């Protein structure tokens, strides 16, 4: 966010609650409680230090699909205030910042490495082979850690001042509640208690603390607006989402033998770009089958049990295919959850060392989210049969099946959702908090519906757009 304003006439104060490196005392400021569906602790999956979550992200990049910006009548509360076209001009800059190499994704496909194994032809069905690219920092460090990578750029920018260990503890609105008047800021002392206090009087404020912490600050800043800043319609903290990334949710068999290496592992292209194949549903199939987005990725080779062997032998013979070299693999996925207002963050009675209320997460995942994904898997299985390339076994049929395989992407989404309608969103299409004239929010917490693509590339593009907007309104 700050770098997008570097070199402009805007004087920027970047306040980072953490330091350069990880500090467990500082990290503890993030802890909270979780109820409902088993989920990661609130102090896991995010990092309170310069660069935030990029200090532990996996570097997976993929632009959101155009359909994911649309209001989909089978996805409640879906729809961005603009289409993907609005973000297009920012994707190339975002791609450069995450250092994922040239923009290739689905443009090039499997030209490299295809000869080294079987390529699964999906023959125009509901799913197609799509591509991830991977962030790679200078010196081949994988992936780009923003704090480490861009710290010097921040220092060099004459219009940016960076303050580390500066915890914003309250957003203070003016009496008319229409403007942020000041920010209360505090440091931690060497014992982890309250240190120095000071205030900042900003012209404009951008909250970029992550999808969880942004909501916490808004809710906790309730001296003027009793329900919290921007929460006049009880939306802040609601619609929390993440991308479930359960492992081993299906088995894929390739009749003709080992799959090309780009399915199961990251592949270096000759120009250094790192790519990996994934199975994605087409927009047409999403509409027809009324499913959410997903990205399914080959994991590791597996051995089939006796029923599995019987299934492969019987089906391959029936299709007239030689499966004597058949190879089986487990499949993992990243799923898009349906927006749910009751999956939410609220303030708890506990407070952190600086007196800020901690959060409580009520986590939910609907059986329908799983059912929609299994429709996607059935279609992939059908396509493999139709192309006589292989077959598929769906492993999860009960909630327990899913939850024993569950992991999470730690992509914190939805808590300050974007909508042109103040009754449907916390921020508008420019990321300005409805009703507050100088408070913006950056990050994936503003995504009103979520995609299955990893959010970083997309939220960076959205943030760059906000940077351009601020340059315009502050000129």
């Amino acid at each position, binding site marked *: 966010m700050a770098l997008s304003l570097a070199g402009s006439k805007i004087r920027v104060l970047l306040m980072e609650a953490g330091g350069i490196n990880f500090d467990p005392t500082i990290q503890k400021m993030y802890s909270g409680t979780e109820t409902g569906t088993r989920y990661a602790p609130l102090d896991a999956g995010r990092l309170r230090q310069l660069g935030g979550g990029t200090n532990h992200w996996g570097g997976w990049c993929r632009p959101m699909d155009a359909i994911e910006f649309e209001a989909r009548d089978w996805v409640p509360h879906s729809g961005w205030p603009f289409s993907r076209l609005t973000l297009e001009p920012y994707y190339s800059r975002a791609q450069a910042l995450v250092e994922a190499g040239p923009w290739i994704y689905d443009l090039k496909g499997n030209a490299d490495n295809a000869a080294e194994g079987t390529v699964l032809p999906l023959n125009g069905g509901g799913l197609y082979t799509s591509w991830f690219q991977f962030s790679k920092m200078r010196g081949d460090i994988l992936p780009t850690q923003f704090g480490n990578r861009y710290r010097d750029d921040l220092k060099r920018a004459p219009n940016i001042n960076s303050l580390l260990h500066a915890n914003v503890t309250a957003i203070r609105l003016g009496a008319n509640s229409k403007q942020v008047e000041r920010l209360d800021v505090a440091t931690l002392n060497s014992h982890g208690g309250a240190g120095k206090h000071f205030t900042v009087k900003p012209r404009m404020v951008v909250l970029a603390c992550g999808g969880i912490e942004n909501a916490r600050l808004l809710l906790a800043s309730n001296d003027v607006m009793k329900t919290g800043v921007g929460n006049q319609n009880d939306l802040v903290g609601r619609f929390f989402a993440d991308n479930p990334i359960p492992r081993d949710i299906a088995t894929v068999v390739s009749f003709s033998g080992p799959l090309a290496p780009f399915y199961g592992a990251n592949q270096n292209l000759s120009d250094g770009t790192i790519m990996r194949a994934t199975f994605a549903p087409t927009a047409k199939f999403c509409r027809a089958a009324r499913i959410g987005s997903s990205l399914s990725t080959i994991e590791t080779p597996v051995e089939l049990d006796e*029923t599995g062997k019987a*299934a492969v032998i*019987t089906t391959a013979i029936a*299709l007239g295919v030689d499966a004597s070299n058949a190879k089986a693999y487990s499949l993992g996925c990243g799923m898009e959850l349906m927006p749910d207002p009751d999956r939410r963050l609220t303030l708890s009675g506990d407070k952190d060392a600086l007196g800020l209320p901690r959060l409580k997460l009520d986590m939910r995942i609907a059986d329908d989210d799983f059912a929609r994904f299994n429709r996607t898997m*059935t279609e992939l299985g*059908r396509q493999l*049969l*139709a192309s006589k390339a292989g077959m598929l076994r769906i492993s999860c*049929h009960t909630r327990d099946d899913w939850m024993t395989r569950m992991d999470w992407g730690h992509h914190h989404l939805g808590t300050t959702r974007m909508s042109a309608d103040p009754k449907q969103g916390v921020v508008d299409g420019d990321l300005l908090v409805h009703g507050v004239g100088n408070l913006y929010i950056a990050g994936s917490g503003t995504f009103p519906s979520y995609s299955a693509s990893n959010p970083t590339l997309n939220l960076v593009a959205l943030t760059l757009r906000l940077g351009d907007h601020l340059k315009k309104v502050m000129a």
Partner: protein
Amino acid sequence: MKRRAIIAGVAAVGAAAAMGLYRFTDLFVKHYPPTPYDDLLLQLVDRQQASRLGARLAGAPDAGTLAAQLRAGLKPGELGAAAKADAAAGRVMEVDGWVLPKTVAFLSALASKV
């Protein structure tokens, strides 16, 4: 009497040899007792594996119902075409989680019931 006994003995030996040969060829081509569904089951190259798979079809109809449904769509010698047509038309079903062409699933289930 003696001649009749010799003939009977030769016949018995012949029958035993034939039976042995029949069982010996089981190593190469599995033999099954005749069933009312052999017109369908003969399309399975490996009925044993199909039976193992078909036994896992949850809530499978009885053999007669399966056979009637199969006969309505499966012509002799055309299992491959039927399986491919099923996949193309979206007629797939799960057996123990495996997504199968409906014809393959039903034929396997039938094999498991005889």
